[in-house]
């Protein structure tokens, strides 16, 4: 078991490193000159600088070094939580992110929780109600929810709840009421994805013979659904939990922009537009860490939910393939 955990953590670290390196490679191989970007941001013409001044600036940001040296330097920094200095703002990136990560974390976490509850509830209802009209409605809903673009959902909410009803503020990140519409926007997509997977899994589970066994015991429909179907149906859906949380994080880019909220999402959007490489690199690394962390947690708690998975010799062992039609010896 310890070996399994250690292995999983090592794997997570490798994925993180790979994400960082890939982003670094892509960003630094872009046909753009970080020097020029900075000067443009500062409103200075490159021609007005002496070659000495240019060389000094390059040295300050380490741009005169080889790409390998730069890479090792940045990687070493990132390991210590130092993502360098923003090219456009001239402030340490870590500081910039530190200021804005709070609201984004609150937004993403609330959206993930709402999506989890709403998605599960929808899937539960879609497979539980017996009135076929309602059943069809519930089971088609996720497809609709997943197909609306987020900016559209956001604009619709603003139009309806802010401008017409005036219930929630259209912009800003002050107070809980400003959180409602962004959370809804994100969780519409995230819960739809979850519900789609869960409904399919429920349908599959409800066809299993052990559900017949449970019904034959004389249990009520809700007891069969909750005690026997839900847990078994939720197991396959666990694997997309990482995707769900990932969606809530990446959605913050669109949502924070549309609702003009302070946060890492908007920072990322601005950084990409101004090609502020260290900031983009930092944001991508953080998003990747969240994704990797959630998947790691899912991997670690999965065996607790599915007793058939046991960890021996550092490998995940599926249950011994049951001889399909043979019984065992007594």
């Amino acid at each position, binding site marked *: 078991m310890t070996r399994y955990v250690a292995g999983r953590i090592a794997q997570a670290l490798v994925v993180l490193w790979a994400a960082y390196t890939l982003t670094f490679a892509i960003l630094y191989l872009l046909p753009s000159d970080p020097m020029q970007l900075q000067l443009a941001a500062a409103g200075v013409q490159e021609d007005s600088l002496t070659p000495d001044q240019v060389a000094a600036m390059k040295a300050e940001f380490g741009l005169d070094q080889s790409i390998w040296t730069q890479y090792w330097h940045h990687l070493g920094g990132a390991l210590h939580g130092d993502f360098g200095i923003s090219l456009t703002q001239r402030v340490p990136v870590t500081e910039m992110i530190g200021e804005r990560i709070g609201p984004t974390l609150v937004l993403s976490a609330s959206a993930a929780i709402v999506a989890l509850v709403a998605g599960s509830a929808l899937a539960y209802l879609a497979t539980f109600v017996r009135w076929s009209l309602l059943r069809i409605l519930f089971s088609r809903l996720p497809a609709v929810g997943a197909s609306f673009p987020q900016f559209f959902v956001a604009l619709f909410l603003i139009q309806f709840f802010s401008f017409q009803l005036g219930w929630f503020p259209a912009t800003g990140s002050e107070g809980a009421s400003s959180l409602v519409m962004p959370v809804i926007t994100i969780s519409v997509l995230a819960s739809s994805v979850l519900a789609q997977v869960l409904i399919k899994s429920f349908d599959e589970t409800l066809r299993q*013979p052990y559900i017949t*066994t449970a019904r034959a015991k*004389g249990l009520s429909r809700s007891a069969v659904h909750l005690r026997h179907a839900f847990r*078994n149906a939720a197991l396959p859906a666990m694997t997309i939990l990482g995707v769900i949380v990932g969606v809530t994080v990446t959605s913050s880019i669109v949502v924070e922009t549309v609702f003009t909220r302070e946060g890492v999402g908007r920072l990322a959007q601005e950084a990409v537009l101004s090609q502020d490489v260290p900031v983009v690199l930092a944001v991508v690394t953080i998003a990747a860490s969240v994704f990797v962390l959630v998947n790691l947690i899912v991997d670690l708690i999965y065996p607790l939910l599915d007793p058939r998975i046991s960890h021996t010799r550092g490998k995940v062992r599926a249950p011994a393939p049951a001889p399909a039609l043979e019984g065992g010896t007594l």
Partner: protein
Amino acid sequence: MSLVDIKGLDVGYVRHRTVRPAVIGLDLSVGEAEVVAIVGESGSGKTTTANAIIGLLPPNGRITAGSAIVDGIETAGAKEKTLRGLRGSVVGLIPQDPMVGLNPTQRVGAQIGEVVKLRGIAGPSVHTEVVEFLDQAGVPDPELRARQYPHELSGGLRQRALIAIALAGRPKLIIADEPTSALDVTVQKRILDHLGGLVREQGISLLIITHDLAVAADRADRVVVMQHGRKTEEGDPRVILSDPREPYTRRLIAAAPRLAHGGRVVARFDVRDEERPEPILTLTKVSKTFPGNDPRRGRRGFNALEDVTVSVPRGQTHALVGESGCGKTTTLRIALGLESATSGSVRLDGTEISGLSWNKLRPLRRKAQLVHQDPFATLDPKFTVGQSVTEPLVSFRVGDRRTRKVRALELLDQVGLPTSYLDRLPQELSGGQRQRVAIARALALQPELIMLDEPVSALDVLVQEQILRLLADLQQALNLSYLFVSHDLAVVAEVAHTVSVMSQGRVVEQGPVAEVFTNPRSPHTRELIDAIPGRLPLGEKVV
């Protein structure tokens, strides 16, 4: 008044707005403490009848006419709530396949406790009752088993846990739907005997649903034979077996190998005094040790096989028999080169194959092919019959499109399938037809040896007989050799010339079938023979 009283019952399944009848005008009664068996092939409506009694018809199932009164309550057209009142407490169910009948994420004890709690019992006495029911169902060490999850139990134990679940509701009737057809013969016998004893002791009525007339005849007070949704014959099993009125019943009796010869096991081939042909496959002193990482088998390495020596004579059938876990499937896998032996030699048609690399082994695979146990899992659901059958030709680059198609048609003809089946998908075929396709696929490369891993144990008696006959015909026509793995001695007696009886990784007895089955020397062989249902002299019933 009887416990179950069914009169003129019609049950159908709605598909595309039309009702396809599954049960037609059925009259059936089950008295108190009576054991009744419904016998018929798949599609005869026997399981539909059982589901109607317990109110568990699938969503598209409808009772269209007649009445089914259970314990004084009409179930035809009854509300879910009424039916729920019957389930568990009046009618208990033992489902067909114990491997999938238990919730995999819940402890066995909790699954039984649930039923106990439905009777209004709470607190620590729930656990006491759970252990008691497990004990009654014949589960050794019930305290331990209650704490375990289903995947930690063998098939036989899982079936006993399911019996405990059925008992826990203290029902008046237990419906056992093909309760043991997924189990070994010896386990099957023990469990059915135990169940029979329990219901008699506790005065519970029992309705056995089975395709196997022999199983029914051994245990029932009354047998009901069904075909195409109708009851064709009903009566005392002794009378039905010795004097069947209906041609269908006669076919069922003839198809059951053990009933066909008046309850004796008769070997079809007697090669006792013949000289054996040269072997096509020889395993000499083969041993296999699996690394010991399975908690169920302890920390030590697990010896799956020890000094197994087996040979298959050319043009004949050699059978491997034994309970599951005895090593017969491992032997088969080693013979096929899918698993390598820890020690010993495997010679196929004069070539040593143990230790050969995959690439060196590959050309030899043309000589030996495999037919699997489960015809439902062995065919790719997305492949048409034609694609499945020609796949081996494609992978060995034999012929072109046109000649492959010709060969496919020829193969279908050989296994008795109409050529129009070429474009069908597996889901459109019955179990027997699928097994024919699997056999056709095995024949595609014109092998000399076919390994058959329980090829008929998933099939109905009537289909079983047809497949066995097909195998025999093919053997004669193509001079094939078979290595036939089975747990069913009655089937082995029908097809095999020679046999090896295995137990715990060793061959305990070996020789011509006619010799081994008439003069068994090993106690294991004797136990296997005793377990064959329908073997007892007629008129004597197992109690």
